[in-house]
């Protein structure tokens, strides 16, 4: 049933992702980005995707490669424009991709709300700014808030450090970033990890993503990149 499945390949992990899906993609820049799952998704061929991720791709790998392959209709992210976001920049300037800019904390909290069954929440971020346009405003206890709605994914593709055979996950340093939140917010959560261990090998006090949020796991050799031009 909902028990996590450990699959043999990244291709098996992304099987069945439909055209038009909303896919939450983990990573902050390139830290924590699930490169192998994204490459498999490119091979798999799903198109017309809506991608929710903090950035809109760096360099020519990961999310940038998915964008370059022409599979993405729309990106919801907090920070598309970076020194090495040339793939997105060109698509955007050519009018080939839609962009919705969401403040970073709202991106995280709206996905958390989706995972936590919260219908909407009043948030102080972006009040009085252009990103408040069209949003419901309410004053509560003397402070002004905007009403924010959940962001739910059909799929989440995330990278973690170690999984146990039940699907419990731990991450590594700041590569943790959006993974745990996205895992809760998607109907189907697909994870690439560097290692799978027997249930009981992870410290139950240190599990970050409990197994209930994980659907498919694939073990791959980690690839790491740093963002070009980061400052």
């Amino acid at each position, binding site marked *: 049933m909902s028990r996590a499945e450990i699959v043999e390949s990244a291709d098996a992990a992304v099987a069945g992702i439909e055209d038009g899906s909303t896919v939450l993609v983990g990573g902050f820049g390139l*830290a924590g980005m699930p490169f192998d799952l994204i490459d498999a998704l490119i091979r798999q061929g799903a198109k017309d995707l809506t991608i929710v991720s903090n950035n809109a791709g760096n360099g020519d790998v990961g999310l940038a490669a998915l964008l370059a392959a022409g599979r993405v209709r729309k990106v919801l992210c907090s920070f598309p424009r970076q020194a090495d976001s040339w793939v997105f920049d060109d698509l955007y300037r050519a009018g080939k991709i839609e*962009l919705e*800019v969401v403040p970073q904390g709202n991106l995280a909290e709206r*996905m958390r709300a989706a995972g936590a069954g919260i219908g909407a929440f009043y948030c102080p971020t972006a*009040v*009085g*700014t*252009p990103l408040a346009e069209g949003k419901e405003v309410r004053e509560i206890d003397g402070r002004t808030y905007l009403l924010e709605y959940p962001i739910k994914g059909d799929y989440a593709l995330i990278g973690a450090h170690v999984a146990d055979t039940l699907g419990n996950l731990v991450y590594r340093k700041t590569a943790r970033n959006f993974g745990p939140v996205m895992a809760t917010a998607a109907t189907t959560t697909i994870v690439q990890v560097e290692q799978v261990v027997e249930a009981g090998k992870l410290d139950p006090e240190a599990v970050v993503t409990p197994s209930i949020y994980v659907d498919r796991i694939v073990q791959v050799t980690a690839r790491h990149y740093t963002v070009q031009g980061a400052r």
Partner: protein
Amino acid sequence: MTTTSSAQASADHRLSMDELAAVIARDVPAGSFVNLGIGQPTKIADHLPADSGVVLHTENGMLNMGPKAEGNAIDPDLTNAGKVPVTELPGAAYFHHADSFAMMRGGHLDVCVLGAYQVAFDGDLANWTTGKPDDIPAVGGAMDLAIGAKDVYVMMTLFTRSGEPKLVPRCTYPLTGVGCVSRVYTDHGVFGLGPEGVRIRETYGIDAHELAQRLGIPPAQGTGGIHQQP
């Protein structure tokens, strides 16, 4: 109008960004929890005394971040919010993005230092987009930081390259946050912002009178009228 007695110090020259970082580092309370924005504000860390006990937060999910990583210490899984590889200090803690921004939004950080395009006398902040048609909008954590610390300091040059003031009566760039900045650190001087308006705290290579005039700070604000009401 003369130099206000509220000015704590002054220098005979306009400060470099490095000197300014040192000034800000001096003002960060010992033992406080601080987020240093991407770009110039990250320099402040280099000037914090070793025994300051200041704990640095990075919004991508860490407390007690250490200095930039060099050489073999570079770990692509450990970066700051600017995506630069950094290090971890003893007593660090990692957390996910929803927890990290809950920490900010909940008002738990003592100080956050940000760069800016413009700051208004009433504390409005503009630092995320120029609003030009060809500018791809990108906000990152700027709006969350703007409303997410007990004190928001801005670190910037006081004038644009063409000589326009960046501390202004009213922002013309799109806003990041409303009335959120409490202090502005610039190469020409330090300004306190509050309900009473602008207060010149220090000047560098310019006197307070001239500074107030160049910025159009109303006399009732930049001067004695303020420090009479402590």
